């Protein structure tokens, strides 16, 4: 596992790329490599994180422009090969805009930008992203978003429920998300998108370690 490398994608406007890298390298001793959005060569990374921020200034819709970057075009093959992709906050928005995950993320119900710690129920550990489920059913992670209200139609919601694709639900829904959804996976389980920030909960001194497991699970096969 020594050479395992996680690619951290940098778009113009990403602002959590360094946090993700710090959490992976500093807290988990996992090697990282920044991937500029114009690169389509993913051959020397084993997993990918799409970090939070405001890619392309959130112009048009959050994640809408990032979808057309060379890197996201190359992601399709990467995902099909079974390698793991984690989209955090803006990364989750990019994954829904580009069709890797169903649904969409829209403006919070109360229009506020919400910056807070939230309690989350682990609903499914499909893909092994939340296997700490036997230790505790609830985790606490920070959120920081203005457009985090997960929306999908009723057919999609049924598919998410039936196929156990809902990873996390808010205990006290802060933004009006359908079915309290905070994070979902694809059918295979190798793609996870979530609005909360696991990379900001990797050290007790800055408010908790509940995000460690999810980042660590990037190295799972």
């Amino acid at each position, binding site marked *: 596992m020594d050479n395992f490398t996680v690619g951290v994608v940098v778009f113009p406007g990403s602002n959590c790329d360094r946090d993700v890298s710090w959490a992976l390298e500093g807290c988990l001793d996992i090697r990282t490599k920044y991937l500029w959005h114009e690169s389509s060569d993913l051959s020397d990374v084993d997993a990918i994180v799409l970090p939070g921020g405001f890619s392309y200034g959130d112009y048009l819709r959050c994640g809408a422009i990032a979808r057309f970057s060379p890197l996201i075009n190359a992601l399709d093959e990467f995902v099909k090969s079974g390698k793991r992709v984690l989209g955090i906050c803006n990364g989750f928005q990019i994954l829904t805009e580009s069709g890797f995950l169903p*649904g*969409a993320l829209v403006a919070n*119900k109360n*229009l506020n930008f919400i910056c807070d710690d939230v309690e989350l129920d682990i609903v499914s550990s499909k893909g092994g992203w939340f296997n700490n489920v036997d230790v505790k059913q609830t985790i606490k992670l920070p959120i920081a978003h203005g457009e985090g209200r997960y929306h999908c*139609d009723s057919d999609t919601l049924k598919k998410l429920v039936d196929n156990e694709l809902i990873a996390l639900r808010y205990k006290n829904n802060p933004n009006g998300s359908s079915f309290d959804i905070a994070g979902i996976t694809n059918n295979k389980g190798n793609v996870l998108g979530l609005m909360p920030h696991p990379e900001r909960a990797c050290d007790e001194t800055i408010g908790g370690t509940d995000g460690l497991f999810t980042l660590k699970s990037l190295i799972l096969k």
Partner: protein
Amino acid sequence: MDQFAVKVFVRLRPSVLDPAGEATKSASIKLGAEGIKSLRIGKMIEVKIEGNGENEVRGKIDLLCDRLFANTVIEDYEYSLEKL
């Protein structure tokens, strides 16, 4: 080549809550406007585009609307087109 002016209207689908529209409705009522039953906010995108005739241009605009201008999970779109 013909040139066209296109106006694309992108709207949140009726089933999607529009909190910005609700907030603006509330402010409109505070301003004293009476009789507002609903208020929803969308986007208008103006494009000037060249092509060989209206059909070809409509094809391009359909692609743009479907893949970029609107996210059809949450939005509907329509457009008007004027030959310049």
